[in-house]
């Protein structure tokens, strides 16, 4: 344990050592990118978060590689599958070693910080126009891809967090299954009524499931903030969450978890699936991909019991995250990397990634696809992408994000007031 601990402690310093090693290793063969993609050779290093390293993840990635190979048949592709939690570690160590990735896939919030850090390069300079992107994807997804008026990434799939409820649970609790809660106050009251407990008072069915592990209530807060009419950051990247709407949204999460106890803090089932989808909760956040088949991971007839809805407190919103793809700064193969980014944007890739990583395709014409139509959650999500509210915000977002979740916990668990925490977070975001 001590030796592993020592590694953790000196990891920060070791990354510097890599810089020196890189000086020796980067002087290898300088392969110029061929003008002709058909004869271009080399190895493209791609980092992709949330792709499982099992056969399913490998197959989805191979599908993207196959599309890429139609244009660049002789280029090799070397993937690096990482969880989102380790993405920064991978990128920062590769930058320190002078061996940056050629293609970087990340979340929406990463675009501006990575552009500011010099980890990804301007796609505008590589000939990708904002106008073309606006024509091909939902317009709301274009602004998060830009940094200092240039395009640095393209969206691949959207990862919304939907709200869903069980019709049967509503009927059982004497609530109208045709009328989901509209405001945050109604949501709180319904969740109280829908919570089932045993004789000892232990929850046997959660009233409202936030579908969040401990220290990760960020997206849920953003969703509630948006429903109250607020937003995380203004268009010019200034924090806007520290106001009455933010306080009310955060107070509500605290009330539901620590006062009403209609929701269990940080609780997840062993598969980490949304509790409302499995019938373990009456209302809750859910994935935009639901398998309605009866075999495998499918939930079968439970699909018919689920209804998807948006809160319409002050404003109708749906929280949306998403996966993007970008070209790494300093790549020797910018055109090949761009071709790989486009392969990730291919309709087939979007659908495969959506299934793998609880997402929904982001193309303008995806709504007509069999994939979206066959999946009630995806269909609802796609139709509501125009109500998207995002979490991203400026070049310092990763700095802010690291403190955001744990700080919200302090309110949710009753250690601090929403006002104090939002004020602290506001000062972090303004640094």
């Amino acid at each position: 344990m001590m030796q592993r601990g020592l590694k953790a402690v000196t990891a920060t310093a070791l990354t510097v050592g890599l810089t020196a090693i890189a000086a020796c290793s980067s002087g290898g063969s300088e392969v110029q990118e061929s003008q002709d993609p058909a004869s271009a050779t080399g190895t493209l290093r791609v980092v992709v978060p949330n792709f499982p390293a099992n056969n399913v993840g490998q197959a989805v990635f191979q599908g993207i590689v196959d599309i890429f190979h139609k244009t660049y048949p002789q280029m090799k592709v070397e993937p690096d599958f990482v969880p989102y939690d380790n993405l920064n570690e991978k990128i920062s160590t590769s930058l320190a070693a002078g061996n940056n990735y050629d293609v970087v896939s990340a979340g929406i919030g990463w675009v501006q910080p990575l552009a500011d850090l010099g980890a990804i390069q301007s796609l505008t300079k590589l000939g990708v126009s904002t106008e073309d992107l606006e024509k091909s994807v939902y317009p709301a997804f274009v602004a998060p891809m830009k940094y200092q008026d240039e395009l640095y990434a393209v969206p691949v799939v959207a990862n919304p967090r939907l709200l869903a409820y069980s019709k049967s649970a509503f009927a059982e609790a004497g609530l109208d299954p045709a009328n989901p809660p509209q405001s945050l106050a109604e949501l709180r009251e319904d969740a109280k009524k829908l919570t089932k407990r045993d004789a000892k008072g232990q929850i046997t069915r959660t009233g409202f499931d936030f579908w969040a592990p401990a220290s990760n209530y960020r997206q849920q807060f953003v969703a509630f903030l948006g429903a109250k009419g607020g937003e995380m950051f203004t268009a010019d990247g200034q924090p806007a969450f520290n106001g009455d709407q933010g306080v009310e949204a955060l107070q509500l999460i605290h009330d539901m978890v620590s006062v009403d106890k209609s929701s269990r803090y940080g609780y997840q089932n062993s598969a980490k699936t949304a509790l409302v989808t499995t019938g373990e909760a009456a209302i809750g956040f859910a994935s935009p991909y639901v398998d309605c088949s009866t075999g495998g991971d499918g939930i079968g007839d439970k699909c018919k019991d689920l209804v998807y809805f948006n809160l319409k407190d002050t404003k109708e919103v749906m929280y949306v995250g998403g996966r993007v793809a970008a070209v790494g700064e300093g790549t020797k193969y910018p055109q090949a990397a761009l071709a790989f980014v486009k392969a990730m944007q291919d309709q087939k890739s979007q659908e495969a990634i959506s299934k793998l990583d609880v997402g929904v395709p982001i193309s303008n014409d995806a709504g007509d696809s069999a994939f979206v139509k066959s999946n009630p959650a995806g269909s609802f999500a796609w139709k509501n992408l125009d109500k998207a509210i995002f979490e991203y915000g400026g070049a310092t977002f990763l700095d802010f994000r690291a403190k955001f979740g744990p700080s919200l916990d302090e309110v949710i668990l009753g250690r601090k007031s929403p006002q104090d925490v939002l004020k602290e977070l506001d000062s972090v975001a303004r640094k």
Partner: protein
Amino acid sequence: MTTQTLERPAGGGVDRLPARRRRGGVERAKARAGWLLLSPALVHSVIFVALPGLMAVYLSLTNARVAGRGKWIGLGNYVELFGDAQFRDAVLRTLLYTVAVVPVAMALSLAVAIALNQKIPGRALFRTLFYVPVVTSTVAVASVWLWIYNPAAGLGNQVLSFFGMARSGWLTDPDVALPALMVVGVWQGLGAKMIIYLAALQSISKDLIEAATLDGASRWQAFRHVTWPGIAPVHFFVLVTSIAGSFQVFDLIYVTTGGGPAHATNVLTFDIFTNAFERLHIGYASAETVIMLVFVGILIGLGRLSVRNREGS
């Protein structure tokens, strides 16, 4: 001042100089062999400990977000750290973890070592069982404890329910999470300390214990005045390695709580990791690392001082 005669002594003196030379040659050969054997470890220490250590000191004086990309800011990071409440809390939490885990683990491991030094049936099996957590990956250990601490179906709450007590949030309750991880820390470190104490106990001459017993000493007196002083040097070794180990607790927290809930388990190493690889402030994280090294150095120095004082008295 003594005077030395330069005269060669009579008889046998002729052979003395070559013998001295031979001895010198042997000593030099031994020294060369020593350096040769030491060199792999030395090279490793220079490349992976000394060099990164020096670079960490340098980085701590820059505003680098990624290694190799920063500007010199002098003591700016240190000044900022002393006003950083999260860093201060992380230091206090680490000290608390150390103060709680190290003495308890040392006392328990000594007790277990004494018990397993007796002729009891199944002694070898027990020694192996106590040592198993040491050779098991912390990730595996943490995964097992995650199940034990599972609020819904974990063994921990089953035990509480059996005794009619209310369920605990264990790792989701900010008041309980750190103590819950201290228990894991004590349990996991028990085996390594136990083996060291066991070796020390076995090195104490049985004759001394017998002599004390014949002189009328009780078992406690024999332990207090014979065994305890006999294992004193080992206490220092166990103390130093335990302090260093507890300051470096990282993987357990990374796997189980991620520093939460509400920062309740955000110890210094985890804070360093967060600043370096989540916030991408490697200069700031390096400053924290340097401060941590100073802390560990001071604690080890104090331990060494107390041993010297004891030996002196």
